[in-house]
């Protein structure tokens, strides 16, 4: 077993990991940073984000506006101090990226252009055509090449955290190329491994999004917070789930059911806005949870169409015109052509909701620090408290920049003050892992593919857009059954070099843990809030009296999950009813006065 020593380890080379690496390298040029990724960094799933990154930009916009939209979008489950910090720092981070060369789309005068996005009252989403995540990731990756202290470990797969008495000591990884186990010691470790969308059957996520970091932390007793909140993106391609960005609707795209009717007006998002003249917070620019739920309701009513066996509705962009589409949504045109053989200028695109984002994740404080000393988490794998029960589109790209920087700086500060845990203290744990890895090889009657497929189907059926107790109980039973089958599963390929079967085996173990945490958390929340909607009697509405709280999933010694609750930090915006469309402006709503109160508290643009 190889042994290496670094100061800071970052697990994950996506947007959050790279931003953290650069922040750490800038904050402490004397420290050695190890950036581990199971793929080459530019393959990370940040690459697939399309729409944009939010920050208060226009003169008529205000930090209080972004603050309020995010809290309301979260159905009041966001940590308000975290949201406050976020909205104040998002703009500077997007500018930083601009200074690093990100090709943001521009207005004729050369200033940065912003677009509309769902659940945002004002245009504040920066974008680089419809490949914003791609450009952010490549800009960060290329910028990271400037820093000699960032040591990349491409295609290193972390299988365990090395923890000694609640203090991080390093990580244990498999070098994919050689099959060698490598222990890397460090003073601080940042998990930036992304989400877990792949535990569901229909998702917009890449094959690598398997919840690794969440499970790594969870197995060492760190709580996973708000795991029941899983975002369905309303517009994925049928079958593959390939993402069709919300920016299509921001640009003026409309959603139609099989009769060509704009069904969103029936779900408190109206009145209808004219096609091609989108209005913030109305109709197609409602938040993602509401839109995905409306699809489910339409399907129940038999108003969805069929596309090769999949229930679909239509995203109509025809009225935007070919020229506008090729300029603002070139990637969408390319995807529609390649995967459903449609030119969006001539035909509506068949779409359906698909799992897109895990709002929950590893519990951290506002400094991205977890309950293990020296262990940080950031990005989709973490729950710093920004998204609550529903994330607003374009907040997560900004999040990984704002909190990636925080995590990098915090990890660097901590690494400068601490020393390495002696290697003797971690040897036993590493040896134990080495033994369990080598005991995996052999032949068994269990099939990895079967277990994985059954898991994703169980999650889709039990923990989908709408949930009920019986469905979730069935899902939980299946997961337990799958876990015991997984315990008997072996890896038939015993080769060392690029052993995909071994990696997938370990990933599946991670996914099963995360799936159970999601299902358990969802069962425990007997109300409906944001992306968690229950059909059970008495649970179909929000219940602030009992559930204005975060769920915490904690792994027990016997491997089961226990749920406990944590209060939500509310600083200036007490809960009110969450409304979109014209309803948001009805006198019954007190949001406006709350917003005014928040503005008076000085949440102004710096």
């Amino acid at each position, binding site marked *: 077993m190889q042994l290496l020593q670094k100061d800071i380890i970052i697990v994950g080379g996506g947007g959050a990991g790279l931003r953290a690496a650069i922040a750490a390298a800038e904050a402490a040029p004397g420290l050695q940073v190890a950036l581990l990724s199971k793929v080459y960094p530019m393959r990370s799933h940040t690459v697939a984000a399309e729409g944009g990154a939010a920050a208060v930009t226009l003169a008529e916009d205000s930090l209080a506006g972004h603050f309020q939209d995010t809290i309301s979008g979260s159905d009041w489950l966001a940590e308000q101090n975290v949201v406050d910090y976020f909205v104040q720092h998002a703009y500077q981070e997007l500018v930083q990226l601009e200074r690093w060369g990100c090709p943001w789309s521009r207005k004729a005068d050369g200033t940065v252009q912003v677009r509309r996005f769902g659940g945002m009252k004002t245009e504040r989403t920066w974008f680089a055509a419809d490949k914003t995540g791609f450009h952010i990731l490549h800009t960060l990756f290329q910028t990271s090449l400037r820093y000699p202290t960032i040591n990349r470990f491409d295609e290193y797969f972390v299988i365990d955290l090395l923890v000694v008495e609640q203090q991080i000591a390093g990580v244990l990884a498999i070098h994919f190329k050689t099959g*060698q186990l490598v222990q890397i010691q460090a003073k601080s470790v940042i998990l930036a491994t992304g989400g877990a969308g792949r535990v569901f059957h229909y998702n917009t996520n890449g094959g690598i999004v398997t919840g690794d970091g969440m499970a790594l932390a969870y197995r060492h007793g760190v709580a996973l917070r708000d795991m029941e909140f899983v975002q369905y993106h309303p517009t994925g391609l049928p079958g593959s789930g390939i993402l069709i960005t919300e920016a299509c609707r921001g640009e003026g795209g409309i959603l139609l059911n099989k009769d060509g009717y704009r069904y969103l007006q029936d779900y408190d998002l109206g009145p209808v806005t004219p096609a091609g003249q989108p209005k913030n917070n109305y109709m197609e620019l409602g938040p993602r949870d509401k839109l995905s739920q409306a699809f489910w309701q339409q399907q129940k009513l038999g108003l969805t169409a069929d596309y090769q066996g999949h229930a679909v509705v239509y995203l109509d962009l025809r009225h935007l015109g070919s020229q506008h589409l090729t300029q603002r949504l070139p990637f969408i045109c390319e995807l529609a052509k390649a995967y459903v053989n449609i030119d969006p200028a001539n035909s509506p695109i068949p779409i359906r909701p698909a799992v897109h984002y895990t709002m929950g994740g590893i519990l951290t404080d506002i400094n991205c620090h977890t309950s293990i000393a020296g262990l940080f988490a950031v990005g989709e794998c973490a729950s710093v408290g920004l998204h609550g029960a529903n994330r607003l589109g374009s907040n997560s790209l900004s999040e990984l920049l704002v909190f990636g920087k925080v995590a990098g700086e915090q990890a660097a500060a901590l690494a400068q003050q601490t020393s390495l845990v002696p290697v003797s203290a971690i040897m036993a744990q590493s040896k134990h892992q080495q033994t369990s890895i080598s005991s995996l090889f052999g032949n068994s009657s269990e099939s990895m593919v079967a277990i994985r497929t059954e898991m994703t189907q169980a999650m889709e059926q039990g923990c989908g857009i709408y949930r009920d107790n019986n469905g979730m109980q069935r899902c939980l039973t299946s997961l337990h059954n799958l876990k015991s089958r997984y315990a008997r599963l072996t890896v038939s390929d015993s080769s*060392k070099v690029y052993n995909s079967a071994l990696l997938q085996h370990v990933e599946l173990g991670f996914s099963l843990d995360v799936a159970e945490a999601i299902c358990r958390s969802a069962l425990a929340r007997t109300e409906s809030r944001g992306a968690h909607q229950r059909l059970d009697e008495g649970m179909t509405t929000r219940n602030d009296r009992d559930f204005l709280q975060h769920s915490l999933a904690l792994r027990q010694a016997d491997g089961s999950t226990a749920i406990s609750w944590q209060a939500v930090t509310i600083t200036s915006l007490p809960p009110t009813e969450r409304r979109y469309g014209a309803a948001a402006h009805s006198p019954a709503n007190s949001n406006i006065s709350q917003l005014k109160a928040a503005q008076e508290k000085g949440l102004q643009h710096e």
Partner: protein
Amino acid sequence: MPDPKSASTAYKPVMSRHWWLQHRYFQLYMLREATVLPLLFFIICLLYGLFSLSQGEVQWQSWLTFMATPWVVLLNLLAFSASLYHAKTFFELFPRVMPLAPAALMIVAQWLATFIVAAGLILLLGGWL
């Protein structure tokens, strides 16, 4: 990026000498490169012609006779089509390297310019001879 002496022994493919026969794109590329051969012949002819001109009437007549031999005509026709082909590939590349106007427009403009210059030269030389 430590690369421990790995157990891996990667297979290093060797390019065969016939790589360019593998598909049409490479064949066309080799054809473009090969256009230099007939063009070389044409240039030698041209230089020989200039030399003959300086040697007086008899030599000049013999060069004209030589140029009219069927195989020389054939080779020069080949050189002509080769230069057209080379020009085509060049004209298509040019708008990509210097994107001054829409590519299609630039390609047409280049051909037009070529024909105008060529016609002008022919008229000029025809008049002089």
